């Protein structure tokens, strides 16, 4: 793992991409910092942090697109996968290298509250909580990017997929408000989901009976639950979509709250993404 970590970090710091990423984050952070804190003399650094979340939409895909896609394209994954290192070790090494690259602009940003303190009183706790939240949000976004880089050989496809998903997660509160909250519409939406799930199962195992049985059982259970107690379906779509709303979990950090559930949430997102990345690499070997 350390070998992969060292190589990856070195490769990011000797090529353009790593510096581009650092540059991009620092320029935007600098602009917001100058506008809010230096020009308007606003004492809350959290404001800058909360306005900055959109930088990940562009910077993370650029950073993560090549991390695994490039290995596959250049066939260097043959070296990694045939050497005595576990797949989890490889993915973790790469992920930690990316996090280290991301930690560089974060370290620079940590000095901003200190600069501000020269001109007045500020809340260090509030400022650094926001920076911690921002760091966790960034790490979660990078993990998502790593996953999309693992499913394709093409860097462009990896970048576009990462962007689309990060954008959808960024806009999640808006997207979830499109859906109706009534129990009936939720139930119908779940019904469609079960149907789609069974079609996926059918394409995978090519067995009509098993997929039909799963489909009928699922739909029947759904209808029975709806008849017995329809109230549990109310707002169901929103509840599910809320799981993907990364920025909502970040908001607490910018409001001076050290949100433990938020920390747990981001760590879970990272863990799930790394697990899926490992699975997608292992699965490819079996194809």
């Amino acid at each position, binding site marked *: 793992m*350390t*070998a*992969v970590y*060292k*190589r990856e970090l*070195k*490769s990011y710091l*000797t*090529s353009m991409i790593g510096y581009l990423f650092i540059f991009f984050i620092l320029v935007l952070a600098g602009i917001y910092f100058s506008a809010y804190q230096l020009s308007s003399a606003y004492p809350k650094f959290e404001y800058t942090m909360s306005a900055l979340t959109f930088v990940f939409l562009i910077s993370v895909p650029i950073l993560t697109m090549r991390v695994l896609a490039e290995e596959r394209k*250049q*066939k*260097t*994954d*043959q*070296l*990694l*996968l*045939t*050497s*005595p*290192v*576990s797949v989890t070790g490889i993915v973790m090494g790469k992920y930690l290298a990316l996090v280290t690259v991301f930690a560089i602009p974060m370290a620079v940003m940590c000095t901003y509250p200190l600069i501000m303190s020269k001109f007045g009183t500020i809340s260090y706790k509030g400022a650094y909580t926001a920076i911690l939240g921002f760091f966790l949000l960034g790490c979660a976004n990078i993990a998502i990017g790593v996953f999309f880089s693992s499913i394709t050989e093409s860097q462009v496809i990896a970048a576009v997929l990462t962007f689309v998903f990060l954008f959808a997660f960024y806009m999640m509160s808006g997207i979830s408000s499109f859906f109706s909250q009534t129990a009936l519409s939720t139930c119908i939406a779940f019904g469609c989901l079960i149907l789609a799930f069974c079609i996926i199962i059918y394409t995978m195992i090519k067995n009509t009976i098993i997929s039909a049985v799963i489909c009928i059982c699922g739909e029947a259970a759904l209808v029975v639950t709806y008849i017995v107690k329809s109230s549990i379906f109310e707002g169901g779509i929103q509840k599910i979509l809320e799981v993907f709303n990364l920025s909502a979990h970040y908001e607490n950090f910018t409001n001076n709250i050290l949100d433990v559930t938020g920390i747990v949430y981001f760590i879970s997102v990272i863990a799930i993404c790394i697990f899926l990345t490992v699975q997608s690499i292992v699965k490819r*070997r*079996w*194809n």
Partner: protein
Amino acid sequence: MIEVNNLVKRYGDHKAVDHLSFSIEKGKIYGFLGPNGAGKSTTMNMITGYIASTEGSVVIDGHDILEEPEEAKKCIGYLPEQPPLYFDMTVLEYLRFVADLKKIPRAKKMSMIEEVMDMVKITDMKHRLIKNLSKGYRQRVGIAQAVLGYPEVIILDEPTVGLDPKQINEIRELIKGLKKKHTVILSSHILSEVSAVCDYVLIISHGKLVASDTPENLAKLAAGSNNLNMLIKGNRSEIQNALAEVEGIKRIKLEKSSEENIWNASLTLDENKDIREAVFYSMVKADCPILEMKTKRASLEEVFLELTENEKQDQAKDEKTDKKSEAAISDADMDTDTETDIAAEKDTESVADVDIETSAGSVNGPAEKEEDPDDSSL
């Protein structure tokens, strides 16, 4: 060292590797031979654990590649078809990275890297970026990477592809040198390479093992079709009659050559019989000078072509690999026979195809004895 049992790799309906079984012993060089798309690379990828097999197992030094991958992979150094190089690193950086990946202890690391660089002669290039190296040097870096850590088994997938003749020779010498300490498996579709380097050859076709033996034994397998080619001056019927008296000829084929009254004779001989002298004396007796005489032994190449081309007809037969290879050869013999016969029928004017049964040899016996006094008088 390596046990491969019933290895199968299926891509959809297509079987890339079809029930392959063999075992690899220590301290030898093994060659995988097969036409393009025969499943050589797929097999190597499965042995090294890069891809998983659909069925069957690969056991390396007692460790199953899928169950104890890390232990098994420690015993293997692998050079894939395309050397897995990072173009943004220098040679030294790259080899250091590989040493770390292979968990070589820090104390030994640098000396080992120096040694391996000397071995493949890339010490002068150690501070160059890999992207600026030529193909030959990249290939050497790839080999250095596989040898690093001195694993017990070194697997090289087409190690000489794309190199110039001098480099090919150097790499071959290098591979031969590896034999002292390591077991080497290499794949190739170039026959001369395999026969020059390997102690043992596994011929693969359509994902199946069609033959496995030493290069010498494989050549012997087809020894039944030894040939003697000659250029003879004289009358056709005279030549034919004279040759008919010689013992040990299976078939005679006479063809007009470009020059007047000179014939191309190609004789198919019985196994392991030297009849050159007998033919000479018999021609002298018939007053037909031999202008040229060449023996042609079946080469590994011919065995290879026979085995791989006839594989499809063989698929129906569900026998063990040994029997299969024999069957393939006998099929091939029959095939070439019928082909030449057809050719002879088409072109009856210039080609005479005479079959002599071996039992007729006893009749020819006295005739040979009669030749002797004549020869001595000459």
